[in-house]
């Protein structure tokens, strides 16, 4: 009901308003859950099988990677199929969040320019959309497990905290990259190119332990590797070492700090930049 807006004040004042933005966004949970799921359906509105194309796409990619790389990498065990299936679906989730995240505010510019609403809600809407896509793609993992006769490890429940950490990281990344995408017109295209490259430098088709030092290093400096490992490892019966969780947490805290400060500083000008 009305407002009083003044020019930029202090950092503390901006921080308070950013906090209100986050709280108000969380309060609007029915909005972003409904719209996030709707976004996926709208994308596939004209397709007969609708968003199940995501399941088919994931299945096709999993099949193709196993077909092409199993022989090349001397991976003959059936667990390689499970390794690829889980890794690829998780990677797709991260890619969706990162690439769509970098244009989350730009894609919503008509709504942003039409009436004020909390910005963080757009990020949450994107996260719901990406999670829904993850759920649909996960059907391909189930089908892969059935085909190869693999069963979930009793340790699989340990994947849940890993997944939760991954989801929070994706929300933080979407916010950070969304702000970057608003400010820098080239950013989203750069992210698109980088994420295509990351498919090959992340341990999805290959295992860090079976390669040379280069592969190990690629896995160690790559944050995506940690977030995949803390979910995939338990599902395949291998509990990741504690330092892997520590590294994932360190990346999460670092990006949360960046996202928080940037959101506080940039929030009031988002509508002017989009």
């Amino acid at each position, binding site marked *: 009901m*009305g407002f009083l*807006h003044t020019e930029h004040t202090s950092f503390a004042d901006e921080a308070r308003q950013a906090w209100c933005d986050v709280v108000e966004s969380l309060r609007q949970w029915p909005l972003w859950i409904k719209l996030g799921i709707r976004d996926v359906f*709208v994308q596939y509105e004209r397709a007969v099988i609708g968003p199940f194309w995501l399941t088919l796409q994931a299945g096709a990619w999993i099949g193709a990677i196993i077909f092409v790389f199993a022989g090349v990498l001397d991976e003959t065990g059936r667990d390689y199929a499970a390794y690829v299936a889980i890794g690829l679906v998780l990677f797709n989730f991260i890619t969706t969040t990162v690439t769509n995240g970098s244009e989350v505010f730009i894609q919503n510019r008509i709504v942003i*320019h*039409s009436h004020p609403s909390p910005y963080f809600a757009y990020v949450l809407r994107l996260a719901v959309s990406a999670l829904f896509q993850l759920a649909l793609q996960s059907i391909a993992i189930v089908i892969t497990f059935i085909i190869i006769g693999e069963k979930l490890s009793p340790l699989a429940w340990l994947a849940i905290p890993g997944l939760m950490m991954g989801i929070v990281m994706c929300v933080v990344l979407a916010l950070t990259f969304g702000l970057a995408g608003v400010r820098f017109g080239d950013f989203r295209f750069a992210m698109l190119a980088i994420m295509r490259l990351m498919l090959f430098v992340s341990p999805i088709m290959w295992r860090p332990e079976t390669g040379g030092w280069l592969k190990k290093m690629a896995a160690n400096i790559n944050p995506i590797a940690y977030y995949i490992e803390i979910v995939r490892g338990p599902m395949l019966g291998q509990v990741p070492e504690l330092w892997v969780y520590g590294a994932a947490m360190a990346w999460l805290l670092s990006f949360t700090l960046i996202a928080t400060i940037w959101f506080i500083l940039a929030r009031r*000008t988002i*509508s002017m930049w989009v």
Partner: protein
Amino acid sequence: MNTVIDLQNLSIHLPLQRARLRRKMLAEGGNGGRVIQTRSGECVAALRGIDLSIKSGDRIALLGRNGAGKTTLLRTLAGVYLPSTGRAKVTGNVATLFSTTLSLSDYETGRQNIQVSGILRGISQERIKILLPEILKTTGIGELIDLPLSKYSEGMKARLGFAMAILAEPDLLLIDEVLNAGDAIFLSAARKKITSLSGPDKSLIIASHSEELLGSICNKAIWLERGELMSFGDFKSTMQAFKDWCAAQA
């Protein structure tokens, strides 16, 4: 009557995203705001030093050439743009009609779009259900409401957008151009609806290049030129001053 809008020394500086392109455009005699240097880089001063106080009950036309700052002012009054300098105070419930495509999906029906738009405007699903018959009456779309939006003309989308904008029964309704897409029957219905919405505690600000439309709705006018407030007063004299000025510029 209460003061519904109070602007004090309001300036809005929009960042230059494609600096070279904008500079070229402005150097070639564009109508937009002036390019200025701020601490955060080069900006367009879309509004400069606006002091304005508007009482409730007024129906105000927003006049000005393309790039004069009409849309920027409307977005600021909606709470979308925050002041670069000065302050903006708006009292009451504000609704906007800036785009006929707000959140609209071409593949969803008019009814589904109303529901989503209502959610985006903070209106509960229950309230939308109650208001739906009134929306159908206002839009005049009838049974087409259950067809996908891709089958709608721009005019029909404008009808739907208008009906959705007034869903929230606002104290201040802000409209930017979009009514121009409607046909004569709809414009007549929209005028009636706007008039019925007006009252001592309701206000309207509308930007349009249609003098006929503005003249039939508004009692006052604001004239902007390159981000500056040229005049604010009764509709006829402000419109005449604006027309005289345009003729002198031509």
